[in-house]
């Protein structure tokens, strides 16, 4: 007499089934969100079975512009690879890379990148695009910095901020991101000790501790100045009560680099695949595509491709990525 016997067992069983379905689904249709299934002639043939995945860790400011999503589709049309992007704060992205939990790192924080390379966590570091940080602020410009040279502008903001001039606020990312590091650089270059003279020096200096987009929204709500990368600013501009006040000056240069992540037990095939992506980014066609990105929507491109002209920035944007392990001479 086996009859209806509603038991936790029924649920456990059904859930176990769902689990099985899900596990199957992980390599199945759930991932098929990107239109990457057709491979055009000339691309590598996808091997039977699940596609290999390549995980890119990047920063929120780059991710929020949508550039990587755009490039991902092109890349997946050419390679039988599932390119996945996780966007994190720069610090977290580098941490993930150090642990070997991703295959590629795309960031814009030169000092941190150099530390990363020196510690032997990465190979084939290539710069592939740049733009300029901009100092954005409310249109009425309470500190009167419009048109100033960047260091002078910072000096003015801190002076008026500390003396309590009404309406003068500065919102910092405050999250040790690439943009935050660029901001610290400017303070230091201006002659202030960031830790002792800028942080906690008064109510004028606001540390958001959030991503670029959220920081911009916060600055907009408070009518404050902030340092932002150009790409994110253009992406968000329509929703912000902020205008670009300063967008010139070498110190505002913002260079994006890609690095193949290396750990001793990272499989060589993965490293080779990651190198493919590095080479993809510096290839002429993709450099051109990067230059075009956003032009239609914002009237100007969000990024300037290196297009081989990177000697003036002292970085490498031309050498094909081929190394699969750090060379001793390479630092």
């Amino acid at each position, binding site marked *: 007499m086996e009859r209806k016997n509603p038991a936790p067992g029924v649920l456990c069983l059904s859930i176990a089934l769902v689990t099985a379905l*899900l596990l199957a689904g992980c390599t199945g249709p759930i991932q098929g*969100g990107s239109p990457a299934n057709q491979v055009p002639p000339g691309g590598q043939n996808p091997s039977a079975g699940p596609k290999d995945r390549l995980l890119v860790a990047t920063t929120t400011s780059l991710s929020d512009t949508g550039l990587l999503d755009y490039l991902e589709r092109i890349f997946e049309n050419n390679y039988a690879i599932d390119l996945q992007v996780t966007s994190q704060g720069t610090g977290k992205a580098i941490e993930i890379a150090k642990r070997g939990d991703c295959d590629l790192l795309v960031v814009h924080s030169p000092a941190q990148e150099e530390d990363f390379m020196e510690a032997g966590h990465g190979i084939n570091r290539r710069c592939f695009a740049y733009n300029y940080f901009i100092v954005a602020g409310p249109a009425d410009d309470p500190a009167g910095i419009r048109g100033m040279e960047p260091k002078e502008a910072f000096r003015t903001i801190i002076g008026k901020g500390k003396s309590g001039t009404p309406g003068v606020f500065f919102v910092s990312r405050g999250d040790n991101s690439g943009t935050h590091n660029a901001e610290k650089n400017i303070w230091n270059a201006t002659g202030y000790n960031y830790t002792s003279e800028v942080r906690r020096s008064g109510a004028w200096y606001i540390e958001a501790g959030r991503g670029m987009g959220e920081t911009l929204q916060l600055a907009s709500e408070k009518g404050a100045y902030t340092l932002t990368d150009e790409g994110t600013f253009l992406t968000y501009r329509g929703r912000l009560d902020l205008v670009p006040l300063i967008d010139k000056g070498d110190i505002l240069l913002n260079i994006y680099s890609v690095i193949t992540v290396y750990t001793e*037990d990272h499989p060589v095939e993965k490293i080779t695949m990651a190198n493919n992506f590095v080479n993809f980014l510096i290839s002429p066609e993709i450099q051109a595509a990067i230059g075009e990105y956003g032009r239609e929507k914002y009237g100007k491109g969000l990024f300037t491709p290196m297009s081989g002209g990177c000697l003036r920035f002292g970085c490498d944007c031309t050498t094909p990525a081929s190394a699969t392990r750090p060379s001793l001479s390479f630092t």
Partner: protein
Amino acid sequence: MNEIFDGFVQAFQLIISLDPEILEITARSLLISLAATGVASLVAIPLGGLIHFREFGGKRGLITIIQTLYALPTVVAGLFVFLILSRAGPLGFLGLLFTPVGMVIGQAVLIIPVLVGMTLVALSGVKKAISDEVQALGATSSQAIWTILKEARFALFGGIILGFGRAISEVGAAMIIGGNIRGSTRVLTTAIALETSMGNVAFSIALGIILLCIAMVVTAALFLIQER
């Protein structure tokens, strides 16, 4: 106010138009959280049974610890599982970080304490007379535990629903372990966080409404199973 209203309008447009990306994110959220609830139930209910029926030193303390873990911050649970699943961690060789399976593990870890606790509550709601009766009828200990779990099933279902609710609505563990990868580990909550940070309020509200609808449908479905 206008933004909120627009949000609702856009939400219903998105839902009605069956936007493929939203469908995909929704299905993924549902599967991951159901699976996590399933895995957690399979671990927590027998564990709760064991704690309830066995007498051992430190039992009271263990229960207190479990109850404390109800408040386990999702980010802490996420970080803990992240460190274990990371390639440099003890289970790194499985390559589960930034995968849906990793998220299932993370959410399961997160809700196991709640489920163990609810199992204990459910079992202590079963009269002593029932366990006496079951024992006198010649049940082995596992038969007795199973029979008493069946007696407590209404309360257990309540716990399971609670666990599912916590799993599908949490964002910390999903973000840290899953990484919010489009097409792979982006679920409703991480998508909401992303869209909000990008200022797409309407889209966020749409996703939020969908999340609540799912919670409602799943809760109703579980109740139907239980009533049957």
